[in-house]
Each structure stands twice: as C-alpha cells, then as structure tokens.
C-alpha cells in the first residue's frame, strides 16, 4: 500500500513538473503572439529588466495583465470543475453546464445595470457580484435537485442545471436588451467567454480569489477523496459531510465565478481538465487537483492565443474555441456513461 502510494506520488510529481514546463512554453508563446512580435529571448531579457522601452511597454502594460488573467481563470475553472465532479459524484459536472455561469452572468448584468462603468477600482467588486449570482444559482439547483430519500441525484442535477440556466439566461437577456449598444455588445461577447480584463486592476480583482481558494481546496483534498466515495463512507471516515460539502461547494462557486467575472462565460474547461488530469495521475485529489488547474491554464491560454491570432482582424472570444474542443469531448463522455 505504502509502496503503491509512493509510486503514485512519484508519478504525480513527474507529470506535474512536465505540465509546468508545458504551461511555461504556452505562456511564452502567447506573450509572443500579437500584432507586435516579440521573440522569446527578448521576453526573457525584458523580464530581467534589460529590454528596450517598446517591448517592455507592450509586455507589462498590455500583454502581461491579460495573460495573467487568462492563467488565473484557467486554474480557477479547472479546479472548480474537479471539486464539482467530486461533490456531485457526477463526471459530467461542469460549472457552465450546471448553470453557475448563467447565474454569474446574471450577477454581472445587475452590476453593469446599476454601476454603468467597469473602469478603475470599481472592477474589484465585479467578482463579488458574479459570486452572488453563482451562489444563488447553486442554492436553487441543489434545492431543486435534492430528493428527500435519495439525496442529490446526479442526472437530475444536470437536468435542473439546464433549466435553471435557461431561466437565468432569459432574465439576463431581459436586462441586457435594456442596455445601450456598447454595453450590450460587451455583454454578448462576455456571455460566450471573452477575456476582457486588460488592466492590472482586473488582475488584482481576480488574484486573491484564486490565491486563497485554490490552496484551501488542496488542503481539503483528503475530504474530497472521502466525499467522492459517498456520504456514508465519508462520514464513516470521520468527515462531517454536510459542513464540508457546503464549504467546498462555496469554494467551487467562488473559483469559477471569480474567473468568469474577468474571463467571460467559458464552459467545458471545468469538465475536460479534471478528466484529463484523472487519466494521467489517478483519482486521488491531492494528485490531480493541481494538475487539473494546470491543464485548465494550458487550455485557456492556448484557446485565447488561437482566438487572437488565427481569426484576424476580429478576434474570436476564447470561450468559442474552448467550446469547439469541449463539446465533442462532453458528448463522447455522455455516450460512454451507462
């Protein structure tokens, strides 16, 4: 047993290291892409403080904030999906499919309707609003999918999620049609997953959420392992089921809704990343949770780069690129489930 665990640990360590390298390469590639090409060597030089004025302006004022947001959002979505899949014991769970993003969109629209501007320091409050919307949706979905005798039914969870997200989308549509043209086009781009945060203040708005919640869930990995085995086994192992479930659900909602606040309604990362991670390093949360975040990061940064570079002159939102990869994968998983 001990030997096996050690072997698993080693494997997880190696795979995670490899993926850290891959993500560094992807990020460098993405920093390089844009109207103004900057070679990787020059990027490293600039980071070391030896770049010329032009490339340091482009890097630090324009590309860095955007890429940091993309990275953080990818991590947040990947981890959030992993938590949700464990909590619901449903391999098809994803914050987008469950309707959390529709709730977050509702929160965002409320914010835009009442504050009118998204500039400067006020951007710090956006994640709070999307979190509020997401939490409301999560509450509704859990209440409606709860069966008095059987607990949370996995498939019903998804059906209820579909319905709730249709409902929230209708309300969001109602508000967004009342906005002026400029805000409307912002909202419609946001809804399909456009990484709009471009300033350091947006990074600051997202950073604390990921920095606090991601380590928190990693500490809780043992609890997640127990919970994903079933309520009875978990409570047999000495986990207080209800308390931990609510805490972890809140963490998942916080991670995904804060990410979505800055990166738009991007679905499927929370579905695909944990699956790939589980295939690579096994089902122990302490192993696959960090990897899931890394894979989320890689997928989102790559999608954003593809959307920006291939489809010129009008960049395609990253969410559409992700959906183009994620939908077939979801359907494949759905076809496999009995």
């Amino acid at each position: 047993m001990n030997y096996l665990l050690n072997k698993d640990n080693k494997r997880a360590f190696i795979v995670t290291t490899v993926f850290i390298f891959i993500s560094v390469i992807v990020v460098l590639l993405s920093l390089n892409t844009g109207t103004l090409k900057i070679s990787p060597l020059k990027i490293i030089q600039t980071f070391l403080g030896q770049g010329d004025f032009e490339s340091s302006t482009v890097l630090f004022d324009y590309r860095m904030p955007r890429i940091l947001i993309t990275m953080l959002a990818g991590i947040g979505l990947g981890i959030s999906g992993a938590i949700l899949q464990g909590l619901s014991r449903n391999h098809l769970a994803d914050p987008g499919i469950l309707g959390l993003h529709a709730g977050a969109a509702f929160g965002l629209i409320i914010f835009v309707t009442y504050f009118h501007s998204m500039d400067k320091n006020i951007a710090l409050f956006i994640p709070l609003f999307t979190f509020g919307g997401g939490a409301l949706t999560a509450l509704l979905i859990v209440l409606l999918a709860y069966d008095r005798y059987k607990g949370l039914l996995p498939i019903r969870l998804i059906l209820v999620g579909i319905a709730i997200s249709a409902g929230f989308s209708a309300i969001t549509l109602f508000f967004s049609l009342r906005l002026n043209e400029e805000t409307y086009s912002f909202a419609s781009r946001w809804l399909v997953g456009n990484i709009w945060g471009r300033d350091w203040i947006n990074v600051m708005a997202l950073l604390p959420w990921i920095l606090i919640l991601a380590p928190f869930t990693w500490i809780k990995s043992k609890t997640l392992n127990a919970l994903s085995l079933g309520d009875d086994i978990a409570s047999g192992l000495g986990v207080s089921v209800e308390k931990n479930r609510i805490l972890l659900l809140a963490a998942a909602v916080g991670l995904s809704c804060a990410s979505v606040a800055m990166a738009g309604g991007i679905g499927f990362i929370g579905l695909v990343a944990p699956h790939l991670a589980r295939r690579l390093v096994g089902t122990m949360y302490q192993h696959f949770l960090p990897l899931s975040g890394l894979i989320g990061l890689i997928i989102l940064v790559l999608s954003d780069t593809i959307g920006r570079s291939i489809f010129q002159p009008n960049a395609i939102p990253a969410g559409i690129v992700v959906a183009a990869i994620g939908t077939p994968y979801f359907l494949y998983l759905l076809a496999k489930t009995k």
Partner: protein
Amino acid sequence: MLNCFSSRILKMNARNYLMIALFSSIILGVLLCMVLAVTFGAKQLTFHTVWSAIFDYNPTVTQQQIIHELRFPRVIGAAVIGAAFAVSGALMQGITRNPLADAGILGINGGAMLVVALCFAFFPSIPYSLLMVFSFVGALISTLLIFLISSAAPGGLTPIKLTISGAVVAAFLHSLSTGVAIYFNLSQDLAFWYAGGVAGIKWAHLKVLLPIILATIILGIFLGRSVSLLSLGEDTAANLGVKTNRVRLVGIIAAVILAGVSVSAVGSIGFVGLVIPHISRKLVGGNYQLIIPMSALLGAILLILADLGARIVDPPRELAIGIMTALVGVPFFLYIARKVGRGL
C-alpha cells in the same frame, strides 16, 4: 346485448360531443386572443377601428393602416408560428417517447440559427424564401447530429441522454453563431434574432410561411394515429401494423420543417413545444390525432399572448418574446424533469 351496444354508442357520442365542444371553445379562444392582440399595443385602438379595418378597409386612415400593415401580420404570424413550434414538439415527444423533447431544448433551433447567421454573413441580401430553406437544412443537420450521438450510447436513446446532449449541442451552436456574428460584425443584426420576435413578420413572409406550416400540420394530423401507437412502444406499434421506421422518419422531418421554418422567421423561441403538448395531452388524452390539432391551437394562443405581453409590459419598448415563454417554460421543465428523474 343490443342495449349494451347502444349505450356504448351513446358514450362514444358523449365523448365526441365533449371533444367538439372543447375544440370549438378553444378555436373561439384563439379568435378572441387575436382580436385582443390586434387591439392592444403601443398605440391603443378601439374595437370599432379593428372591425372596420377588417370589413371596411380604408387605406387613407392611419389607424387602419397600422392594423393592416403591422398588427395583422404580426398577430397571424405569432399564431402560425406558435402552432408550428407546438406541433413540432408534440411530434417529437410522441416519436421519441421523450417528455422533455422541444425544438429549442434539443438544439434543433440552434442549427437553424447558425445557418441563418452564416447566411447573414455571406449573402446579406438573400431572399426570404431561400433563407427559409437554408434554415431548414441547418435544423436538419443538427437533428441528425443529436440523434446520432445519443443513439451511439450503449444505453440507447434514453430521454435524458437525448435532452442533455441536445442542450449541450444547443449551447455549442449558439456560441458558434455568436462567433460568426462577432467575426463578421453582425452582432446588432443578430441580437434581434437571438431575442426571438414576431415583430418583423410582414405579409410577404406570411405568404411563404402559412402554406408550408399549415400543410405540415395537416400531415402531422394524418400521422397522428401511427404516432399514438408508436408512443405506446415500438414493438406494440409494429405488431399493430405500423411501419415504424417510415412513420418515425416522416414525423421527425415534419417536426424539423416546422421548427426550421419558424426559426427563419422569428429566431429561436424555446419552451412552446415543451409545454403545449403536455397540456393538450391532459385535455384530450393520449390520441395524437387529437393532441396535434389541440397543440396547434394552444400553441397559437400561447404565442399570441406572449407577444401581447411582451408589447404591453413596458410600452413603447418591447420585451423579447423568448423571455415570456421562458417564464412559463422553465418551471414547467423543472416539474417534468422531476417526474422523469423519479424513474431513475
């Protein structure tokens, strides 16, 4: 013996009379709703004006012009398209034996929307009749896709799988059409389409729409007998002499025509095809020969009222009609999903 027989005839007659009474009252309801919808709106008109616009039309009077050129096509359009969506839902629910089937939920509307978006991007000046054909083709492709995917699963074509894969394909197609809209700078034109609305319907559209939809609905009614048997189960139907594959094919194509054609005119309006067939089934029982015409009538009523509601909540602005139908549809979907989920 004779006595027993005649009492049965009496009973059947009683049921027939009941049905006739039910249908005529619903038809009256449709007419009443139409008159209401023509009368009320951003500009209030009197019944008298409406009356004279119908029977004594005078093109020089502005109010009569409003009625003739704007309100009539709009209200008739709402009725026809409501009927189309409802019948399409009824056919699909009967054929797939899936109580959650609806052209919006299953992603059929999504395929039509994507093709409409592509048409806007590449052939902005396409005539309406051609757009309709393209929209139908889009709906057909997405239907094929969804059925193929969910029948590839080991458990077969279960209602829940069909619904989930439909919803995901719908979301995907929607994000693709948004992508097309953003890439070709069409957001403004398509926003109207997404919201779904009967405001843009003109007489020219109706001339094409009306015959196609009515003919398809009549085809659906003729299919009704076989669909009712099919809804009992495939083996039962086959034993009773129904050519199941042929009926299924024709029925699904009819449903797709109805959905695709409607989407080309008003965009995606969800939930009509989900809610109405259930209500009709409660009213007339499990016979699709009755369910289909009843769905058509009730669908017409629902969409006329939804459009009327969208117009008068906050005049002169108009709410999107899709919001009104979602308000009714979402709780209903949850209720049905709970019932279906109980079988798990």
